[in-house]
């Protein structure tokens, strides 16, 4: 019996952590966030670590690991606010394509050649002026807040939770970037006018499982980001002096940090177990993914605010870059469903409504 990460998972975590520490420091995050550099370089480098290939079976050139492994990676990526399309291409898209048996695309993901964005918004919470219509294998309409503004193709979900694969450069597709507060990852809108697409799935369960996985990755990303903010807050509080004391010696500051740690620590187990459930306890997987997403959204928001406060005015400036974590946590909260909607889903999957 072992509740925790395996040695292999810890090695995976360490290797991604080491790469990001060395190759994707805050300065590079800033360059990518400001548009001076593309995140494709990071993705290419992560390919050498096998990250895009994580969930893809070995015969297709993948690593053949599971969702708990993906959780481990997402957490490290969040810790470093790393700009890359992991949760979209490597997790959500990989799961959908695996189910559809689309081996060529999977192999291309594994080599880092194919980058697939996720346009699920119209099946999660459609806005008045959006919505997708299908006519055979063509799509028309608009999808808002598609994840990854730089993908080669998109998996587009329709209102009935069918999924279509459409290439970004097919005629009839217009892509507009949509700026959000979180500049470490991009979102866009997709406009379709009789755009040629391929139906990948008509099974709502495929959509739901990919959505669960995406939500879980956001939870793990927030876990890592919030942990990084807590660590930075504690470090800062032990350096910053006011009133002839380090501010970390004030009980008020200590209790702010203790609150963050106390609320964050159980999140780790929740997220791990949710990953394990996706791999091994299918009947609990959806409930756990919803709870992980919603609970981390709440704890993450509180940690993001408190850690900023502990930094005082410095936390508010751009100087330390703390806001990249703040905004990443904020984006994870809303994307793929706000906490209220996800909790409603948690009630639904256990038959309470």
């Amino acid at each position, binding site marked *: 019996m072992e509740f925790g990460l395996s040695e292999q998972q810890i090695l995976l975590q360490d290797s991604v952590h080491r790469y990001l520490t060395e190759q994707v420091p805050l300065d590079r995050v800033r360059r990518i966030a400001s548009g001076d550099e593309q995140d494709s370089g990071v993705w290419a480098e992560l390919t050498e670590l096998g990250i895009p290939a994580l969930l893809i079976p070995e015969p297709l050139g993948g690593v053949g690991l599971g969702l708990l492994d993906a959780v481990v990676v997402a957490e490290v990526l969040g810790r470093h606010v790393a700009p890359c399309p992991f949760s979209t291409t490597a997790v959500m898209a990989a799961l959908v394509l695996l189910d559809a048996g689309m081996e060529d695309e999977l192999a291309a993901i594994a080599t880092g050649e194919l980058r697939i964005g996720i346009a699920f918004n119209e099946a999660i919470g459609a806005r008045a002026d959006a919505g997708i219509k299908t006519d055979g294998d063509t799509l028309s309409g608009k999808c808002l807040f598609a994840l990854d503004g730089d993908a080669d193709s998109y998996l587009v979900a329709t209102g009935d939770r069918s999924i279509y694969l459409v290439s970004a450069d097919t005629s009839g597709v217009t892509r507009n970037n949509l700026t959000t507060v979180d500049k470490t990852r991009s979102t866009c809108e997709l406009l379709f006018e009789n755009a040629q697409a391929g139906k990948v799935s008509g099974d709502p369960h495929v959509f739901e499982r990919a959505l669960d996985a995406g939500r879980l990755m956001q939870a793990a990303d927030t876990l890592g980001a919030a942990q990084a903010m807590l660590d930075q807050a504690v470090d800062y509080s032990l350096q910053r002096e006011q009133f002839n004391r380090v501010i970390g010696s004030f009980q008020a500051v200590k209790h702010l940090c203790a609150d963050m740690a106390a609320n964050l620590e159980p999140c780790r187990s929740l997220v791990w177990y949710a990953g394990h459930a996706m791999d091994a306890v299918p009947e609990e997987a959806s409930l756990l993914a919803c709870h992980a997403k919603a609970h981390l959204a709440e704890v993450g928001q509180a940690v993001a605010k408190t850690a900023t406060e502990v930094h005082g005015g410095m936390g508010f400036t751009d100087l330390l870059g703390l806001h990249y974590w703040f905004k990443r946590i904020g984006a994870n909260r809303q994307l793929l469903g706000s906490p209220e909607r996800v909790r409603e889903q948690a009630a639904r999957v256990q038959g*309470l409504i």
Partner: protein
Amino acid sequence: MDLSYGPQYSQFRDEVREFLSTHQHQQPPSKSDQRSEAVLDWQRLLIEHGYHSRTIPRDYGGFGAEPDIIKSRIIAEEFSAARVSTGLGGQGISMLVPVLLEMGTQEQKQQFVSATIHGEMVWCQGYSEPGAGSDLASLTTKAVLDGDEWVINGQKIWTSTAQIADWIFCLVRTEPDAPKHQGISFLLFEMNTPGIEIRPLVDMTGNANFNEVFFTDVRVPKHQIVGERGQGWMVANAILGHERGSLAPPDAARSRLNGVIQLMQSETINGEKLIDNPVFLDRLMKLQGRVLAMQYHDMRLLSARINKNQDVKLASMIVKLIGTELRHELEGFAIDVMGEMGLAYEDNPYVRSGGSWQYSYMYYLGLIIGGGTSQIQKNIIAERGLGMPKEPKVGAR
């Protein structure tokens, strides 16, 4: 992540099940007096089979098995599933026996351990005082050596089983001139010693869950001390940690959460089932997320006791703080859900779940305070968990 216990344990689980199916008819009726023959017989049977006092040496009346956390867990799981009593608890068994095994003399172990685990000797704990709560080490109940006897004067509070206890294990100040942590001794004495007065302490729940105990010239044989004079703080701290984590077990939280769900599914207001109220449902889901997090957190801590390479230092410090706050909120949520009905208490015929929602709402506020207040817990988390500076000490006056 491997949540199975492994094939090597399936035989053990079978043995437990076999025992239960053979013997469960012998378990004492619920609410039996803890001195009754039925309870004592059952306790003896459990120890004989290794389902209680499993790792306590045979020399001291235990079963003498090697520690095995998984086996302990399997016993707990199977007894719980069969709704069979796991035998006696209490502070003598959970706190004093481990202390004696670690720090007691040969004679003390012989005299007390077997009798305690077999329920023949019931203990209470004399630690807190009216003036020594969060700052326990400032306790002032004093014991002065007079010939071969300690003479004890002072007062204890929060002594939960004082009325029924045979003996007390008690922290007293024996070295008034030493620094406060080094002037305390750990004494054992009988509760029928002359000079002991017990007063029940009614709390906000309306029950006397605790007592005050007063000592006036209580004379105790000199040798009834655990450890040396002045080592009492160290002796007590060897086991204090144990108590904290167990105040708010996550399984109980989950069970209470399911209780709320049942309430919400059965109760209606204006013909609407409470579970169909989206605002309450959202609050319920928030709580469920937190309860699940604590449940898996508990599994992580259990796992770390088996796999010593897992670092759960910080993780283990937060359990008391988060666990008690969560339970208090959960019980309060049930009250909110029921509205006016949630106020029902005691002999009110409309009381739900025996009035346990209001009772636990208050009792868990007591637990937020007791055993180290939330403020003390946060100090511990910040200082020992996060490495932040200690509170500046203010000198004794």
